């Protein structure tokens, strides 16, 4: 399998007061196409920081992050926006749906940014809503949705453009057990059907049991990088 993400000697420091805080320290990681992996670690260990770099929302202070052949540090605003627009989908703990748009319009948004024609857009949106089982809610506004439904809309929005990489930052943190399992099953299915690379950040056991690979972070360093398939079997435990 080909490498889709390659992190080499990445250091991330944030300015704090007079000095710096080192959030990531000498990270070396590779992800292959179609992986279903997670970054796991205590709060403040650097999970979100690493996801942000992979998604080109942030840049490393030192080292190299190559995503789909592109060096994140060397991208212009426009190029990094293009990378996110076409190749990277984000799912957040707080869903971050656009409040004034309906479910349908929220999912459609990414495609509008890509200037995709109306007919093709409609087909893709309905398909994405079908994947997450929300076609019947397409005209609802986000404030009328439950947490589980909101997160499924976020998944549909991220997946509708068929990105190569999907980054999910604690997607289950605001969900109850049932909804957490639901959302993980949906994503696992998409991973298998579309060969999308998923990278999670989580400290939720429910999420972890679906993962094929877990990268343990602590204080900005990789503590352990384990393949889970042996432990849980090919499709994870259910």
């Amino acid at each position, binding site marked *: 399998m080909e490498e889709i993400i390659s992190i080499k000697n990445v250091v991330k420091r944030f300015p704090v007061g007079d000095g710096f805080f080192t959030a990531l320290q000498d990270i070396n990681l590779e992800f292959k196409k179609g992986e279903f992996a997670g970054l796991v670690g205590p709060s403040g260990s650097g999970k979100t920081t690493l996801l942000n770099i992979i998604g080109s*929302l942030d840049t490393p202070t030192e080292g190299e992050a190559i995503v789909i052949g592109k060096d994140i540090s060397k991208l212009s605003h426009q190029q990094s*926006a293009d990378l996110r627009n076409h190749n990277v989908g984000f799912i957040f703990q707080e869903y971050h749906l656009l409040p004034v748009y309906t479910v349908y319009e929220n999912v459609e948004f990414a495609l509008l940014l890509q200037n995709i024609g109306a007919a093709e857009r409609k087909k893709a949106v309905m398909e994405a809503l079908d994947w997450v089982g929300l076609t019947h809610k397409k005209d609802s506004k986000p404030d009328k949705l439950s947490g589980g439904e909101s997160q499924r809309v976020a998944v549909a929005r991220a997946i509708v453009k068929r990105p190569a990489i999907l980054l999910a930052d604690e997607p289950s943190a605001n969900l109850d057990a049932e909804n957490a399992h639901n959302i993980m099953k949906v994503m696992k299915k998409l991973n298998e059907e579309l060969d999308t690379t998923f990278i999670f950040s989580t400290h939720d056991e429910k999420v972890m049991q679906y993962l094929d690979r877990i990268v343990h972070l602590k204080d900005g360093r990789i503590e352990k990088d384990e393949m889970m398939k042996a432990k849980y079997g090919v499709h994870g435990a259910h």
Partner: protein
Amino acid sequence: MLRFRLAIKNLLSAGTRTWLSASILALACLIMVMYMGVLQGWNTQAKTDAINWQFGQGEIRSPKYDPYDPFTIDDGHAVIPAGAEGEAVPILVRQASIYPQGRLQNITLQGLPKHQNLLSIPTGKFTTEKEGVIPVVIGKRMAKTANLKVGDMTTLRWRDKGGTFDAAQVLVADIFRTNVPEADMGILWLDIDKLYEMTGLRGEASYLVLSNAGYHKNVPSWNYISKETLLEPLEAMVAAESIGAYVIFFILTGLAALAIFDTQVLSIFRRQKEIGTFIALGMTRKQVVRMFTIEGTSLSFFGVILAAIVGIPFGVWLKSTGVSLGKPTEAMNINMAQTIYPVFGTSLILGTVIIIVGISALVSYLPARKIAHMEPTLALKGKIQ
């Protein structure tokens, strides 16, 4: 298109605040267009009246005549140039006095041909059956100051060609009503032929009112004053009046602009997670700046639409009934009709709309620029101060 749709939805969801700002903008727009429309209507009326009663297509003045210097009147006359007939109406000005109710009142006699139709002065009324009296026509203002009515007679005293005083009875043959005080106050209009008889200045005139502006080229020795020059003071007067409209307009637009600015600052602060999301979804920061700018600017479109909904029927009604400014206008001695029909020009309406939209765009853009410097990672967390 996408940005526009989102902007409209966001605005509508903002509720009262949106409608309040839009209403202020609409009000500014309405007041500006209505006020300026009335002034424009006045301008049109005043100019039309001045042309019809006073200026024609311009004047040529005999070399020594200056209407602003009464001392020039005595000598300010010359033989009417050849070929003037059909191109201009000659007017001979002389000083004289009348004695209504025995009181002396200085006036100017202005003689012009009985058969002219360039000026609206009712020269056709220069007739009487009475022997030995001089028929004159006067305006309402003159009639009022001299306390004269149609059919009244009064004594007129003037100097004949030898410079000695002569006197006769004048008969008020008609009183006309004009918006132009300069064609009215202190003037007795009479047949120029009669004035020739009285003064011995046959074939002479103080100035010619042109019906054909080009004629002045044939008479280089007379002073040509174009219609445009003659109308300048009127334009200046209307322009001075429009300052008030601008003041009100800019106060209201300024208020709305402040409201928009404030709303923008607040919404950019409150919606930073949304801004982060837009960037995560693949928009550049510049695109997000543009989107927020469009959102703020759209408010002015609401304002303009609101103004149109109220203003179009109101304007159409006003245009047909006119604006009545009541009686006092006549006493003010300015060229202003009692009822003014507003004129709503395209440039007035378009200009107002462009200014409103432009200012809204500016005050929407200024706060939105901040987005360009936002860290998307912090925005997503809502941690930007």
